[in-house]
């Protein structure tokens, strides 16, 4: 598949900063997919977005967006993209509709076309009741929706969304997710940055974990979780002796060391199906667990792993 975004060895060192913000940043996002750039504060997520949207010049490296070279064809890039920045960058004094008309006019739509498009987006984003009200009076979720709408006035082929749900309540967050999913259905490529693993898991086809200005791990959410972790069966018992006995009984299902601690036992297994055999073995040994659970690794574990491992090697 064609790459909608491609970055190679991008480097950016802000003047006066101790370390580079991006240091050999590589990324390839296939057209029509959602890529989540995941990382802690200061990992370089926003810098990467600002470089690929031509707001910031890179020191070194190369990047293309929708086939346009970020360094030499900034206008081509700008024509192809939409950007939803970290703080909802819309005009606070104007109303929601007036904002959309303004951005439509700035994208070269004629007055009537800009108005028609604004009306369409206002109703699609559920802002009809507030269309004429100053944006300064909007809630955080409404601003986000307007911000997204403003970046879609002329449908982009690549949409950059920088931490779209930071500071939003759960309802507003689900709203934004639904919007992003709809865009992907329309064929838009989305690069979103987030600190929320749940968000990456929920939306992304491809997750790139960023640390110290470079991608340290990437793949589909499923690939990443299987890469790191193991599935474990965890059981708890009424007494520590039972837990120890269960550890011995279940030994043949374990693909790694069994952990017994107090009344709990944790058995790493090859897959979730092993839970049946594990329970049968417990029954055979006359052990009745109080609680049995299968725990799969989450992106959270991957994230912790990535951050602790690279911390250890620095």
């Amino acid at each position: 598949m064609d790459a909608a975004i491609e970055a190679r060895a991008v480097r950016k060192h802000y003047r006066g900063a101790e370390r580079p913000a991006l240091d050999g940043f590589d990324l390839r996002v296939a057209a029509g997919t959602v890529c989540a750039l995941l990382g802690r504060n200061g990992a370089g997520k926003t810098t990467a977005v600002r470089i690929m949207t031509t707001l910031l010049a890179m020191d070194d490296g190369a990047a293309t967006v929708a086939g346009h070279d970020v360094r030499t064809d900034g206008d081509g890039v700008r024509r192809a993209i939409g950007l939803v920045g970290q703080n909802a960058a819309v005009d606070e004094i104007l109303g929601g509709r007036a904002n959309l008309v303004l951005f439509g006019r700035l994208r070269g739509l004629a007055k009537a076309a800009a108005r028609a498009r604004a009306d369409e987006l206002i109703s699609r984003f559920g802002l009809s009741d507030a269309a004429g009200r100053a944006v300064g009076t909007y809630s955080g979720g409404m601003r986000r929706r307007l911000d997204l709408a403003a970046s879609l006035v002329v449908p982009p082929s690549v949409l950059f969304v920088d931490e779209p749900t930071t500071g939003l309540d759960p309802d507003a967050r689900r709203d934004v997710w639904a919007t992003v999913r709809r865009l992907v259905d329309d064929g838009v490529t989305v690069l979103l940055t987030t600190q929320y693993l749940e968000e990456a898991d929920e939306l992304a086809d491809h997750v790139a974990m960023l640390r110290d200005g470079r991608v340290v791990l990437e793949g589909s959410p499923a690939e990443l979780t299987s890469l790191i972790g193991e599935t474990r069966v965890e059981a708890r018992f009424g007494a520590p002796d039972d837990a120890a006995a269960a550890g011995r009984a279940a030994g043949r299902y374990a693909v790694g060391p069994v952990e017994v601690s107090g009344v709990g036992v944790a058995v790493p297994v090859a897959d979730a199906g092993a839970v049946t055999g594990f329970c049968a073995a417990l029954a055979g040994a006359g052990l009745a667990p109080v609680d049995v659970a299968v725990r799969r690794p989450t992106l959270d574990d991957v994230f912790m792993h990535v951050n602790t491992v690279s911390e250890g090697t620095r």
Partner: protein
Amino acid sequence: MSSLVHGSLVLAGRTFGHWRAQPVPFVVTLLFPVLIVLMMGGLFGGAIAGSAGDYVPFVVPGVLALTMLFGLETTMAAITADASRGVTDRFRSLPLHSGSVVAGRCLADLAASVAGLAAMTLAGFALGWRWSAGPGEVLAAYGLLLLLRFGLLWVGVWAGLKASGPEAVAAVQIMVWPVGFLSTVFLDPATMPSWLGAVAEWNPLSATADAVRELFGNPGVAGGSWPADHGQELSVIWPILMVAVFAPLSAAAYRRLNR
């Protein structure tokens, strides 16, 4: 070129939209210089010129020039607000001519200044101010006032791009007062200590105030010094110097936003 014109017109239209959406701050900005004339005329007119009525012909042209200085704050505040709220970045992420943002600002601010001059002129008339010159001179006087505004506009754009936030704007809002008083706007520098008078005479604001007083046929300052006798020349030179220095600085500051 057409994209520059289109972009600037749309962005100037955005500011006009602000006036429609929030007319009160706009009207307050228009009327503030009128308040200054009323205050200065009423409180100090008698002390300075013998009577408020005798002070009006002197102070109205001065405050017309001062109104142009107040415009500096408007420009700077607008540029800073857009930069700090990410609006400038959004504009920069659009396929716009790179000059559109600043050119749109110029158009809107010059329009605001024309409105400010009109309001002050009407108020001046109501207070008994008159010009005794032909239409050519009167037009030239307003042209010089707007030329000063145009020069200050670039100072405002540069300061707005350099400002870290609203605190810097507040600092400039305070600093316009000493600049305004250390000029011939309110007083003849002949009444000041000589070194202070010299500073006031070289103030760009004084050059414009002196030049338009002469063009309107209103009473001016006593003169005698080089800057006081060359107000008209200086009222052209100062704004051109401002543009020559601050337009390139502004362009560089705008380009440096991507560092």
